[in-house]
């Protein structure tokens, strides 16, 4: 009996909140129409997803994206942030040429020593395991070059080093999910290792795990002339 006494006002309050009993009519109309629109759009997206056409052949397609991406620097034990973009040029159904650019935000405060900037450019090849379909996992080997700047202490003064170029060893793993012929969602994780010396008094390691995820675009650049079958030619010697 006691519990129903407590529960009843709570239920009434919840119902009033859901049905907007105390909201003015105009506001309620706007809220309801937005809700119905979102509901309809999401229902439409889910029902239409399998019907969306995707490219049957990846060869000749390009996929590209740009987003904000995080990273984690192991030696510095700090999180990093980037404006990043990458692209895949499919010159084969299973193999794509990939390139990526990472522009870093300031990694530490003005009065701190350590990495100031950690920009990078990568290029390599990705191998896509599965035949063309919606789900497209891949692994990539992407060597790169880094542009690194750091602050260091010399004679009780903070000095900023020049931007130094360094070689980077890198590999990546990820997947794309082709929602339609024009766009896809993706997740990519990239491991990077390198060391910068430049004008610094001691070398600084830039071992990092970079991540990116979001919405990307895919377009057909050229129409492939023939399919790659990779089958050896069989000839009859007696012929």
């Amino acid at each position, binding site marked *: 009996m006691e519990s129903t006494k407590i529960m009843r006002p709570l239920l009434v309050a919840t119902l009033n909140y859901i049905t907007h009993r105390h909201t003015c009519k105009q506001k309620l109309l706007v809220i309801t129409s937005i809700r119905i629109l979102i509901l309809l759009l999401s229902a439409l997206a889910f029902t239409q997803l399998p019907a969306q056409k995707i490219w049957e052949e990846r060869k000749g397609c390009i996929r590209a994206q740009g987003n904000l991406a995080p990273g984690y620097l192991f030696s510095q034990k700090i999180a990093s942030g980037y404006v990043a973009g990458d692209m895949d040029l499919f010159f084969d159904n299973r193999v794509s040429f990939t390139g990526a650019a990472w522009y870093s935000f300031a990694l530490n405060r003005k009065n701190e020593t350590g990495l100031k900037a950690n920009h990078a450019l990568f290029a390599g090849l990705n191998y896509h395991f599965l035949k063309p379909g919606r789900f497209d996992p891949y692994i990539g080997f992407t060597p790169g070059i880094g542009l690194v700047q750091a602050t260091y202490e010399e004679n009780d003064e903070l000095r900023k080093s020049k931007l130094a170029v*360094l*070689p980077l060893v*890198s590999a990546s793993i990820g997947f794309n999910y082709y929602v339609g012929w024009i766009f896809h969602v993706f997740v990519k994780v990239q491991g990077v290792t390198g060391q910068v010396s430049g004008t610094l008094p001691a070398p600084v390691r830039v071992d990092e795990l970079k991540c990116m995820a979001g919405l990307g675009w895919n377009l057909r650049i050229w129409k492939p002339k023939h399919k790659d079958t*990779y089958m050896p*030619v*069989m000839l009859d010697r007696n012929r």
Partner: protein
Amino acid sequence: MERIRWLTVMLMLGIMPVTLHASVKRDTLSDTTKHVYPKQGGNFSFGLRNTCSLFSEHTASSFGAGVGGHFRIQVTDRVNTEFFADVLTTNIKNKAHRTDYHFGWSVMFYLINPRAFNRKLTPYIVTGHCFDQTVIKINGVNGERRARFSSALQAGLGCHYNITPKFDISLCAQYMLHLGKELHTDETPDGEIEIEEHKNAGWEGHLLLSLSVNYKFLQLWKARR
């Protein structure tokens, strides 16, 4: 009449093994038909690589890592050529660093028939020549810096792992012998690093391990079958 019949039977029995053998021979796929792979001469492939360097001459030098690229032009089924450029940095006891720029070419000879790269593994021997710019710099803004330009010879062993006939991952180990003035570092008893240059030609070398990904883009010329 009876004799003629027996003679005919005997003759047929005598010929039968020959005809059977002939029919067996015709049925065997390996004898009459054989995989004939397209000729590989003219293949042009492009690759990107990471290279590790292990110096053998100097105790003060250590592990170096680098990045580079190459393209390959295949001459015949068994012979391939590689034109490469690399940049490697090596940390020297956290007090100095060495940067090596390599650009050169190599000839690769496949130890087994690659069968148009339909085999998963294709081992090869490699030898070649390159030009090399070495820069050693003591760490810091005003650190001493010395450079030398030289020539080098390299030879080693490698292996392609053919994921598809067009796409491969290659691992290669080469010993590179620098021919020219010797440039190296020495550590003084008080722990400082000094750069030394010897005018005599030194047999300075390093082991290079490279891991690359390659894709055969096009065939520059059509090899005759």
